């Protein structure tokens, strides 16, 4: 399972974090060029590929591979 978040697209809205039942995601430490602290996969190993994070992301910033 590989989850990637496009940090330049992410607006730190937190919708993905909210829907992820596995606590994979969290707001990251870095501010992107627009001033948003992009989400990072803090625990990628917990990810089960359920995709709901991607389904909710308004930015299409999340990509998932298996």
């Amino acid at each position, binding site marked *: 399972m590989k989850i990637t978040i496009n940090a330049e697209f992410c607006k730190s809205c937190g919708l993905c974090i909210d829907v992820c039942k596995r606590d994979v995601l969290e707001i990251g430490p870095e501010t992107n060029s627009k001033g948003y602290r992009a989400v990072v996969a803090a625990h990628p190993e917990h990810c089960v590929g359920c995709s709901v994070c991607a389904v909710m992301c*308004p930015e299409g910033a999340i990509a998932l591979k298996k």
Partner: protein
Amino acid sequence: MDALYERPKSLTNRATAYCPGCLHGVATRLIAELIDELDARADTVAVLPVGCGTLGMFHFNTDIVVSPHGRTPAVATGVKRSAPEKLVFSYQGDGDLAAIGLAEIMHAANRGENFTVIFINNGTYGMTGGQMAPTTLVGQKSTTTPEGRNPAETGYPMMMCEILSQLRAPRYIARFSLDCPANVIQAKKGLRKSFELQRAGKGFTFVELLSNCPTNWGLSPLECLEWMRENTMKAFPLGVFRDRED
């Protein structure tokens, strides 16, 4: 590795111009996914409204025609009648569709125009800064109803699916919510159905998507979803209002 989820090709390669957590982004993404899935990128015309939906100019990697405010269904009528082979959708906010453009949506629906309308109901005029929309809830504050919408002065939220269902020609009319993954997945099904019906020449299809406006609601993206469940979704029941051949 196999892709479980990939960014659709029918989106341009940039962040949206929407505010953080705005469900316009989800709607836009869903549409782009479907265009990809139907392999229709080169044959699609997106008819965009005036409203935050105008920003779709930055997002859809398809042909685009931007309409004057509210005339979106009239423009889409001109587009589709001139190019019946295209997959045509109009994308409209509640100000655009239910206020200034009410005559246009009703008449396009009544003529049974063969395109798909995607209606983003966020209960406010997002782009202009949060004025009352026809779908603003009773009691909901806006910059033009500072004390909350008072039905004695400004009436009740307009239920567009219900109203349009009074017309005979429309082929498919349904309301979904974008508040959670399960509902987003349902919404995509409704959109797919609409696009497929359009491709089969079945006439007017209409998908209302309950949405949010974190900026003008003055709530965080997550609070917005909560608010939608407790308020918007109670006032606007989800469901399929029309799905039959006449």
